[in-house]
């Protein structure tokens, strides 16, 4: 069994006013890993996309429960966002950039593309009629590593 360093769970109603609440909560939790501002922005955006999907597509604006779990293991954050909504018919097609089932509502179809490029790993599990679970992982670079890289760069430029 894995030994988790820290863990949190959150449940909230599928109202789009909760999107900001969800991403800000995850960001506050993730800050324990001392992420850079850019890493934090990436995490917030990916969470916002996943939660929006649950609300808009999973529950189609009906009221349901969105579950959010986050774990910190060493220098990684693992975020799980799940709903008991209608599920995704074809995950591969849903992941295509610009694909959207709701183009008339000015949806860009970029949600999964953003999650995949902002996080290190994204796993989508979905069963029609039962719901969807997104598991996203991001490795937080140690700030010391950044400094060391800068130092070695300085050395190279000195030579």
């Amino acid at each position, binding site marked *: 069994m894995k030994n988790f360093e820290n863990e949190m769970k959150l449940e909230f109603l599928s109202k*789009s*006013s909760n*999107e*900001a609440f969800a*991403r800000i909560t995850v960001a506050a939790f993730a800050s324990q890993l001392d992420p850079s501002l*850019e890493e934090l*922005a*990436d995490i*917030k*955006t990916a969470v*916002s*996309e996943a939660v*929006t999907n649950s*609300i*808009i597509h999973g529950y189609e604006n009906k009221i349901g429960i969105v579950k959010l779990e986050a774990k910190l293991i060493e220098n990684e954050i693992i975020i799980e966002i799940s709903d008991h909504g209608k599920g995704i018919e074809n995950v591969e097609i849903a992941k295509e950039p610009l694909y959207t089932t709701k183009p008339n*509502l*000015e*949806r*860009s179809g*970029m*949600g999964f*593309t*953003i999650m995949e*490029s902002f996080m290190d790993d994204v796993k989508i599990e979905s069963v029609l009629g039962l719901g969807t679970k997104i598991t996203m992982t991001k490795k937080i670079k140690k700030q010391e590593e950044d400094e060391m890289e800068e130092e070695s760069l300085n050395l190279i430029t000195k030579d």
Partner: protein
Amino acid sequence: METKFFEKDKLLVLKITDEIDDYSVQKIRRRADNEIERYMPKRVVFDFDSVTFMDSAGIGLIIGRYKFTNMLGGSLEVANLTQSVKKIFEMSGILKLIPIVSLDEYKV
């Protein structure tokens, strides 16, 4: 959202002051369309200087306003993109259609 209209250049600057997500975008969209219809500008510039967060809802917002201003005979541009806003716009490819401009000559 803060609005400024420069009569001489028929330029409408729409400065977004909220975080942009699926929730806030509905209000921003309504206000922007109202202002565009009211001033019938030649140029519409969205100013992102005060935007602290944006997800893919921002892409839909800009594409939608791009179509709307084009339909009314105007053009759409964006200004003061933060690093994270730029990253999302670049990913979507919309910067090929919509130029980034400077608002330095207009005091906003």
